[in-house]
């Protein structure tokens, strides 16, 4: 793994350690007594802190996950080189696009 990818993986891991801990805490709190769309949207609609936090969360995930998958693919399969890098760059874009769309969806709805 190149030094840049290694650093990106570890830097986003630090961000995600904090973000996932907060997310897990939120999940445990939110599911008490059932979960409805109204409950979720009441907390997220127009909440700027939510938008910033989960926006950063998605960006960190979109960097972290494809680099991790790249390591797995290179070690467990024969797939490597340019095509693997392109496929995982596309996966990063997919995560970024779908993730930001989801964050915006619950922010504006």
């Amino acid at each position: 793994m190149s030094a840049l990818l290694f650093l990106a993986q570890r830097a986003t891991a630090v961000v995600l350690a904090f973000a996932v801990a907060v997310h897990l805490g939120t999940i445990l709190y939110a599911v008490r007594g059932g979960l409805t769309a109204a409950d979720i949207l009441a907390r997220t609609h127009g909440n700027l802190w939510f938008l910033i936090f989960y926006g950063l969360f998605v960006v960190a995930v979109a960097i972290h996950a494809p680099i991790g998958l790249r390591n797995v693919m290179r070690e467990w399969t024969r797939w490597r080189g340019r095509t693997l890098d392109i496929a995982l760059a596309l996966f990063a874009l997919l995560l970024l696009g779908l993730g930001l769309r989801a964050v915006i969806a619950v922010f504006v709805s």
Partner: protein
Amino acid sequence: MMRASHRQRGFLAAMIHRLSGVALAIFLPIHFLALASALNGAAALDSFLAVTRQPLVAFLEVVIVVTLALHMTLGLRVLAIELFDLREKTLAVLSVCVAAVCAVGLLFILNLG
């Protein structure tokens, strides 16, 4: 083939960390698509949430929450080893990871009611 090093706790932890990461990478796009259903209104999101109340899906929900907790705690272990040289305390660190994951899983199940 199973090597001697593969029987060590550190190897098992690394393998679980890796497999949980792959599982989360597969799950994430589905999770994002489900949340984006809110773009079609609260009713659309509610119809998705109704699916998650089915026993099998509810069970898978617990599995994914535990998987997330596993990946986070084992990731913290990797950071601790790399940043603070905690390698010789593997058993203690792994015990804390297991305890944290069990706590998250139990709290999630208890709160689901």
